[in-house]
């Protein structure tokens, strides 16, 4: 499997996420689309990690090259979890105030 495939898979997923952010009005769905974007990044990182690992192995059998990519994914997940906590808290708070999660209702602040 050439790394190219993964790159395009990831980019496609990323762009679907972006398109989702742009086309939806429900804050929660938008948030999910952002999660999609993050996962696209994760796939890519893992793919590169694998790629670099293979390259490292070719040079040195005991190489641990590539582990940093997977570490990064781990931290992305950590951060994503934290973000979700805060994000959902904010969305719920908003829902409690206006009984909607429609981002188009958020237009008091403008100009």
């Amino acid at each position: 499997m050439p790394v190219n495939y993964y790159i395009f898979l990831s980019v496609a997923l990323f762009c679907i996420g972006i398109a989702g952010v742009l086309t939806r009005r429900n804050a929660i769905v938008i948030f999910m689309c952002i999660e999609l974007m993050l996962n696209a990044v994760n796939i890519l990182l893992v793919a590169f990690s694998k790629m670099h690992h293979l390259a490292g192995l070719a040079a040195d059998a005991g190489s641990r090259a590539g582990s940093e990519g997977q570490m990064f994914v781990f931290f992305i997940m950590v951060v994503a979890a934290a973000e979700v906590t805060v994000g959902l808290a904010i969305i719920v708070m908003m829902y409690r105030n206006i009984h909607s999660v429609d981002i188009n209702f958020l237009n008091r602040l403008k100009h």
Partner: protein
Amino acid sequence: MNAIILSAIWGVVMMYTGVVTKKKSTPKVVAILGILLLITANWLEYAGLPFFNVHTGGMLAFTSFGLVFNLVAFTATLFYFLLSGSDMEDVGDNVADYFALIFFVLCGVSIATSFASLLMLFLGIEIMTIPLYILAASDKRNLKSNEAALKYFLMGTFSTGLMLMGIAFLYGASGTFYTEGLNLGFGSLTPMVMAGMVLLMISMAFKVSAAPFHFWTPDVYDGTPTVFTSFMATIVKAAAFIAFLRLFENAFGKMHSEWQLLIAIITALTLIIGNLTAVFQQSVKRMLAYSSIAQAGFMLLAVFALNNTGKQGLILYAAAYSLATIGVFAVLIKMKDYTFEGFNGLAKYQPLLAALLTIFLLSLAGIPLTAGFFAKYYMLVAALKNGQMFWLVIVGILSAAVSIYYYFRVIQAMYFKEGKDPEIHVSEGFKTILLVAALIIIILGIHPDWLLNLLNN
């Protein structure tokens, strides 16, 4: 390292303070103690006395540039606490928690100013911003606050996505997250590096609210409780700039000429949009939000130029801009009416306050004898030294001229227009601290080298 650890610890301390004491004023005192501790610790580290010996794996690098900025940021925070700390009580009950969040932000700031790995950059920026989402939302019943928080959150995470994608590309191209490793590896702009670099640039531009990625700024600054806007717009933003500069210097310094045009475009757009849009604002708070965009445009010149003058200037700019903006916000918080008209005749009822406010505004406008002048001076010199794209300097100059318009509207309102007594209640202590801030601005306006010499150690 001192600052990172102590600020995190002090954040926890603040959390417990909220549990232990019900007195509303206690957290402020503790927080001031904490920030003094931070300043001292940071100073000691600057002087070569680190408290902790932590294995960073090379992911953090403490340079005098970062440490001096920390000093500036903490000092600005000290002023912020002293001036506006009590006003947090008006936002909600969880005063101690707000302080805790601010200390966490400071932790993120310290990381962002010393990262040597993209991972730390990512973590630092996230630690800086996630508490801000919460602070923006802290006025829970206020729909504006809700709106600001949600907008900030959605756009912030979106830009985080872009940044991560960029980091991923860079990792793919180089196999490392170390900025130094990137810089050693990049002689030229391969497609992957290019994609990664552009995405990183965009996400950093977002963080520093550079056009056309600035849209969150006015709304978020406007909706956030003013006391927190003051913090967001100054220290956090300046820290983001330091991160921006460090990232592009350490990771992409060798291909400076490849991305200079993009930065130039961003800079020009930021200057123009920030200044132009600020002109027509009716609310001082919102004007300050746009002015922060405009100021960001100037600070971007440092990134554009990427030379030593620019780095020095950025420190000075951060100090000048933060102090002045915190000062203006501190007074603004006390006002009931945030419109320009609300300031009418202030000089009559609060002459000292008006005078100090004038000094802050003059500094923001970049008038000589204030720190703001030398801040802009360094930026211009840096850009000129760079020798490329002279038109950018002209755009900078012209927009500086436009900025006079909205800063002086406040001065005009205070001094030359008649108005009702705004009935501001400020203590003598508040005035004294504001006076000290103004004095620092003037001293830096006469002797900026006193601050900048710290960088040469």
